[in-house]
């Protein structure tokens, strides 16, 4: 260990060697960070989109082709164990009007307890209260305690729309811009009264796994969808939570693949930096290396030292990249400059989501490149005998 430290001291002797080592570590760190952040943004978008969708629709949306339907005993029997993860909803198009501003909304009558169980969203509502989406709150300039006028159809043919006043109890965040702008919630009983649809609903939401945890596999939802479609028959339409945004999820997948190809360029740039370091040190310190070999440093020891140094650069860069990507994630969440326009990006904010597998993949690929680069350095040393090296390096 002591001799390794001495060797390290020899290699880093001189300001230029230290500077180039720092520059190499920095550039490698930034390259890995760029790759991590790009993958993280893709995965984060996918994660936020899916969790946002699940927060507003559960895992499966059940509608009837007849419009309103009654989730009677037969219906509940078919749901079986999923019955405990079912929430009934009455949903109606409406207009929200406040202070001379209006906006088209989707008013949902819910049972807060079962709704939370299915979507993971805690909604505290009293009779006569409404909870609006976060973006709608901003758009209309609402505050908790304000009275919001909601205009909606009464549910009867040829009848005029009715205006109902609801007290704003607060705002809700689904994580998807359009839904934070459109979805508002009242008690199911309140909406039943307005629409005269007692005991009937037009939407049912089902969750097949804990809504607060990422879904391990979309296949679980697909399997339930298949069996429920068979059991409920053709009178019902069942849609998975991603159906409205499946094009986006697919686009992210395709984009991730195409960007990963582009990112190879960044990997190559990073490898060039490492190679530049290897060549620089080999040229600058070859006198030292050959002389050390002459006075008793074995090729194996030199090789081990060389690999240890390069692996050290890799390890420090990986740790640096881990913290930098974390820092970037924090900035994305908290700095206004990184807030994206939700109407374009669907999500109101972005975040970096990196799984252990993503870290391992990026770090491993970087490691392979680093080992290749260090091998080139090793070959340069190995291909010359001590005598050749001494004569060439000290006579020139």
């Amino acid at each position: 260990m002591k001799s390794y430290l001495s060797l390290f001291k020899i290699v880093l002797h001189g300001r230029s060697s230290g500077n180039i080592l720092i520059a190499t570590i920095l550039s490698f760190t930034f390259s890995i960070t760029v790759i991590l952040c790009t993958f993280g943004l893709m995965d984060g978008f996918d994660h936020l989109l899916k969790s946002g969708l699940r927060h507003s629709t559960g895992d499966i949306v059940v509608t009837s082709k007849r419009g309103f339907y009654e989730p009677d005993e037969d219906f509940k029997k078919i749901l079986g164990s999923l019955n405990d993860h079912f929430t009934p909803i009455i949903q109606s198009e409406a207009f929200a009007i406040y202070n001379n501003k209006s906006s088209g909304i989707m008013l949902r009558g819910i049972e807060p307890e079962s709704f939370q169980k299915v979507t993971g969203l805690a909604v505290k509502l009293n009779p006569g209260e409404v909870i609006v989406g976060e973006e709608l709150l901003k758009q209309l300039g609402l505050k908790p305690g304000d009275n919001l006028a909601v205009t909606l159809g009464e549910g009867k043919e040829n009848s005029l729309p009715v205006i109902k006043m609801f007290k704003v109890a607060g705002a809700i965040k689904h994580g998807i811009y359009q839904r934070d702008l459109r979805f508002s919630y009242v008690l199911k009983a309140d909406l039943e009264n307005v629409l005269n649809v007692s005991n009937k609903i037009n939407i049912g939401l089902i969750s097949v796994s804990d809504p607060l945890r990422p879904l391990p596999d979309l296949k679980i939802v697909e399997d339930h969808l298949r069996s429920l479609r068979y059991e409920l028959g053709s009178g019902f339409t069942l849609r998975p939570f991603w159906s409205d945004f499946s094009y986006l999820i697919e686009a992210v997948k395709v984009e991730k693949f195409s960007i990963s190809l582009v990112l190879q360029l960044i990997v190559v740039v990073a490898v060039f930096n490492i190679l530049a370091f290897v060549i620089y040190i080999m040229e600058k310190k070859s006198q030292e290396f050959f002389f050390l070999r002459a006075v008793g440093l074995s090729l194996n020891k030199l090789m081990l030292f060389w690999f240890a140094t390069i692996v050290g650069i890799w390890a420090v860069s990986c740790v640096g990249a881990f913290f930098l990507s974390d820092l970037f994630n924090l900035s994305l969440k908290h700095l206004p400059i990184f807030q994206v326009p939700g109407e374009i990006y669907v999500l109101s904010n972005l975040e970096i989501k990196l799984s252990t597998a993503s870290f391992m993949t990026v770090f491993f690929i970087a490691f392979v490149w680093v080992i290749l680069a260090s091998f080139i350095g090793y070959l340069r040393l190995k291909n010359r005998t001590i005598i050749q090296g001494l004569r060439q390096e000290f006579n020139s």
Partner: protein
Amino acid sequence: MSFIKLTNVEKAFGKTPVLRGINLEISDKELVAIRGASGSGKSTLLYLLGGLDVPSSGEVNINGLNLAKLSDKSLADFRNQNVGFVFQFHFLLPSMTCMDNILLPARIGGTNVKIKQVEADVKKLASILGVEHCLPKYPYQLSGGEQQRVNIIRALSLRPKILLCDEPTGNLDSKNSEKVADLLKNLAQEFEAILLVVTHDDKVASFFPRKIVIEDGRIIS
């Protein structure tokens, strides 16, 4: 019994033979000058003796060890613990002070070497050779003679059993050459080391009791 024994040693670089059928025995603490014209193979012989290179055929035995059979690591350890090199070009690393240069063999020698002890020995030797003031300086700040003395101190820093010198006076004037030759002889005797000096200078060779002459890769006397 001889400490160094070379049997039928041949060395070729590519298809060019450099050493042919060398048989040589050197006893412990012997002081030897190897003479020969440029390109005669004398330096190559020295490098084979120091374990810096291996013969194309034949055996190089040192204290019972056949160098050709040693692994790279064992050969490196052998060089570190048994051989001190003084080259014509001093091979002092320009990026380090003279003291750091001298301590290099000790530092890479591993845990067996006590650096503090070596440092103390080096200072003592530097004071004897009159270059104590050079130790904190960089090689480029020293004269040719001072650089060669520092080079000699480095070669002796781990108290080697064999001191190999390749044209140690090649870059010095005749007055300084004689001083260095005399110095090497005295130091080798003090350190009880075998001294092998490659030189083409008859005056320098005359300082040593045994002389070997090489011509076209063969020992002729």
